[in-house]
């Protein structure tokens, strides 16, 4: 079940965070991502944040397609 969803951390207390998923707020456990911070984007699965989304890497991926592959 790779049905994990991107979310933005809007608040944190201990090892629980409130995240915003497309306007819907829910609480998730941060036990698997203890170093995450408010304002960061994470992937949420089965009630837990499981990984951090990196904006710079996202831009690099798109740049590779648009600037490199897209030219010529």
């Amino acid at each position: 079940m790779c049905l994990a969803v991107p979310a933005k951390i809007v608040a944190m207390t201990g090892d629980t965070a409130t995240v915003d998923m497309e306007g819907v707020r829910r609480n998730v456990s941060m036990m698997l991502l203890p170093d995450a911070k408010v304002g960061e984007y994470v992937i949420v699965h089965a009630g837990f944040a499981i990984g951090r989304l990196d904006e710079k890497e996202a831009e690099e991926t798109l740049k590779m397609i648009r600037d490199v592959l897209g030219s010529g």
Partner: protein
Amino acid sequence: MPKFVEEFERPEDARVLIRRIQELARVVGRDRVQFMEVCGTHTVAIFRYGIRDLIPGNIRLLSGPGCPVCVTPSQSIDEFIAISRMPGVIAAVFGDMMRVPGTDSSLEIEKAKGADVRIVYSSLDALKMARENPWKDVVFFAVGFETTAPTIAATLATAADSGIKNFYVLPANKLIPPAMAAVLETEGLALDGLICPGHVSAIIGSRAYEFIPAKYRIGAVVTGFQSTDILQSIYLLLRQIVDGSPRVETQYSRLVVPEGNLAALGVMDEVFEPCDSAWRGLGVIPSSGLKLRPQFAEFGVLQKFDLKSPESREAYGCLCGEILRGKKEPLDCPLFGKACTPESPVGACMVTTEGTCQAHYRYGVERT
């Protein structure tokens, strides 16, 4: 989340990638190139985006065994059904397990007959049920791959720390890399590359796939779930064939790192250890499942209850096994669309939205 999702679905990027894929497919010059997408969510995404219609005809995409619901064998379902029938038990389960057929019944049928079966989104919800119902035993069906297993491990660690005595799991988690190896060992299956799961990889890291180019000389690309991601991965796999350099590449670099999620791997290792495990359709694969370590054995439901589960068997005529290995396709199955439909599924591949058969059925694919 436009920058992480919608930005990866732009038609203009798809057009660029398709053009590059067509160029490379011509250079490769083979009648047939076969890639396997391991993960059920990729199977659905490929259908939803119409990827097969966009790529050249000599590139074939096969669906693999990466659907945890599909590969849970009848025996595990039968065991959990037996548990759910016991008095004083709340049987907690992920929603997509409800309709999976066991030998004679399903959890949905048992619930209709009065068993206290409850759907949860998270194993933490099941633990909460245990706290709120101290006079009942809450048993959670621990299904899922490496994306899910750490969440269950964290829940068990919490249960242990909190001294909860009425929470149990039926361990049924499985591991993806050993299943990939089993598929790659399938006789008569010629694969030229693997589209690797994105979220399992967030946990295990892209390094986990190094054995694939090392032993099988084909590429493995860790892939995201949007159209751009899938097309870019197909492009990267073709480029590896043209370069003659099979290797692990991470297309989904905005989430996946080589070492994976160390905290998740740590708790998974603290609570579970690998064991041999039976996969529906693939048989027993060594070291492909997870069992509780001795210090967490008190949470294992099979230790508590003496189950007499009947002879378990898979449905006659069902080709899920070969479909999960990529050897056959849904249309090859005599039951597909006739005896076996999403409304009345015979095999697990038809039960869940991520199963190959249901995806084929819902998207109405007819291909030669």
